[in-house]
């Protein structure tokens, strides 16, 4: 869609809801700003609390007068955070790559190619979205032990990949479905093989979709507590969330340490998202949500 027609759409939706009268503008700004403040307020408070000395948490002003990083020094010093961070990066990377490869291939097939029992296969894959994670941990553990992958980052990443593939296929399929059929047909006329069409035509046009899938998967994998806590046993290869959760449990009544741990756990995904949000919105725009 061109910039001009987007603008047109924007103006068209405007209507008379809130924007035409100056009073409506003010009310609209007040509402949106309030909403934004409520959204980030608790997180800002979390960071502010982590910068206070323990004695001032309940009595002092909301904004610390003398912000200090003691809680962070304590949490990081206690934890050896660097290796956990790296482990999370490794597990998340393998998972994201695996999910992108498997789901883009399968999404393409579900969008365009004839497959026996297509709807059934798709339905079975989608049913995985309904699984309560708690039921899944014990059998996944037994499975990895059987395969000799228990207590390895590869094993954990493979479980994450298997669990992430259905939703990713769902997204990728709708991205591919938005590709004009003429493009595929033209390539076919030229005698291109399916793999070539996929790699040269469909995938390049669906890069926003790949970005969307990657972003979702980074969030899912990075934020996971139960699977990595259950499937990885050696602390040397453990990921960040379970390690931080140990601190959360140990320091539940030490709010600066607790909020510092929460901040360290939340900060990477927030920074990651803010950095890539353009891709994300572009990705959603490009396809998935048009259905």
């Amino acid at each position: 869609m061109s910039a001009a027609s987007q603008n047109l759409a924007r103006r068209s939706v405007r209507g008379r809801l809130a924007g035409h009268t100056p009073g409506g503008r003010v009310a609209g700004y007040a509402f949106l700003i309030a909403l934004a403040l409520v959204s980030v307020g608790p997180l800002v408070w979390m960071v502010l609390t982590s910068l206070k000395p323990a004695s001032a948490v309940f009595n002092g002003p909301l904004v610390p007068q003398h912000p200090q990083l003691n809680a962070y020094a304590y949490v990081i010093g206690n934890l050896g955070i660097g290796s956990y961070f790296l482990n999370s990066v490794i597990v998340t990377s393998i998972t994201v790559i695996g999910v992108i490869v498997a789901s883009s291939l399968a999404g393409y097939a579900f969008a365009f190619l004839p497959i026996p029992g297509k709807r059934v296969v798709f339905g079975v894959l989608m049913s995985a979205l309904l699984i309560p994670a708690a039921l899944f941990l014990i059998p996944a553990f037994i499975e990895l032990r059987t395969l000799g992958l228990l207590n390895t980052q590869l094993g954990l990443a493979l479980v994450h990949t298997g669990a992430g593939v259905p939703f990713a296929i769902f997204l990728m399929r709708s991205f591919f479905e938005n590709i004009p059929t003429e493009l595929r047909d033209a390539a076919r006329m030229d005698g291109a093989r399916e793999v070539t069409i996929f790699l040269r035509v469909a995938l390049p046009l669906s890069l926003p979709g790949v970005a969307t899938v990657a972003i979702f998967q980074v969030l899912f994998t990075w934020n996971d507590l139960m699977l990595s806590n259950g499937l990885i046993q050696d602390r040397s290869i453990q990921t960040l969330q379970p390690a931080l959760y140990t601190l959360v449990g140990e320091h539940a009544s030490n709010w600066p340490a607790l909020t510092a741990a929460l901040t360290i756990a939340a900060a990477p995904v927030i920074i990651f998202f803010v950095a890539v949000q353009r891709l994300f919105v572009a990705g959603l725009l490009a396809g998935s949500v048009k259905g």
Partner: protein
Amino acid sequence: MPSTRRIIARRPTREFLPGILFVLPAVILFIAFVGYPLVSSLYYSLFSWAGYGVPEFIGFDNFVNLTQDPNFQSAVVVTVVYTVATTILQTIVPMLVAILFMQKWRAGALLRTMIFIPSVISLTITGLLWQLVLQPDGGLLEVLLNRVGLGGLSRPWLADSTSVVPVLIIVSLWQSLGFFLVIYYAGLQGIDPELYEAARVDGASGFRLMRYITIPSLRSVTTLVISLNLINGLKVFDLIYAMTAGGPGTASQSLGVYLYKLAFGSENGASAAFGYADAIGVVMMIAAAILFLVVSALRRGRRA
């Protein structure tokens, strides 16, 4: 499409080959690490099994017992209330906010990003954070209410059986508003502007445009949002467990929380009951599948 069909008829196996090869990696990953383990687990819903020791086959006894289990019944009520409320709120509120965002706002992108941020944080962290925010002594909400002279409104929100579930629903909205907002926002940009122009020519404006153009055009986005909300609602666990562990008593114990406690015996005086937890999982999956089918049938029906 007719051409594809003709080809299938002529060379079925060869025509299927690329499709099969393309889905193979995903299917293998899925079967190996999700499908097979899950099926082998759900099989234990027919057993009395603590998660260790020798499972004892008991047929459908776990399911029969569910029908007489007051904790299961209260968990169903909590889950249904939570799912219905979050689905309605988290479908309508983000849609309206997204429509509002379609106007030109200075710093609109910044505001959207701020609203989105909570949804990238894990539900466990969200739950722990809000437990602190809502704490009656020193929590952010109490401090703020005191500052603005509304200290009298301050309540032990999570201590009251009547307020605990509504509070959880609002925290869920806080967490997911930005996520669904972005999905709707993207969907709105995809609406063909000519539709509006045509309607305007017919004299429609304001709420009528929204009612007759915007909302119908968002139908497929809305279906996606509703489906995601239904699934997340039925499965809800992390947020509730981190904030209340299902309490006070069982007032906020959802099916996911009850299942978790049974599966791992973490708070069950006696031993874990993995088989029984599995039975709850089976019921949840069937319920979710039925809902899923109903939603997609409604969608198809509307389209036709």
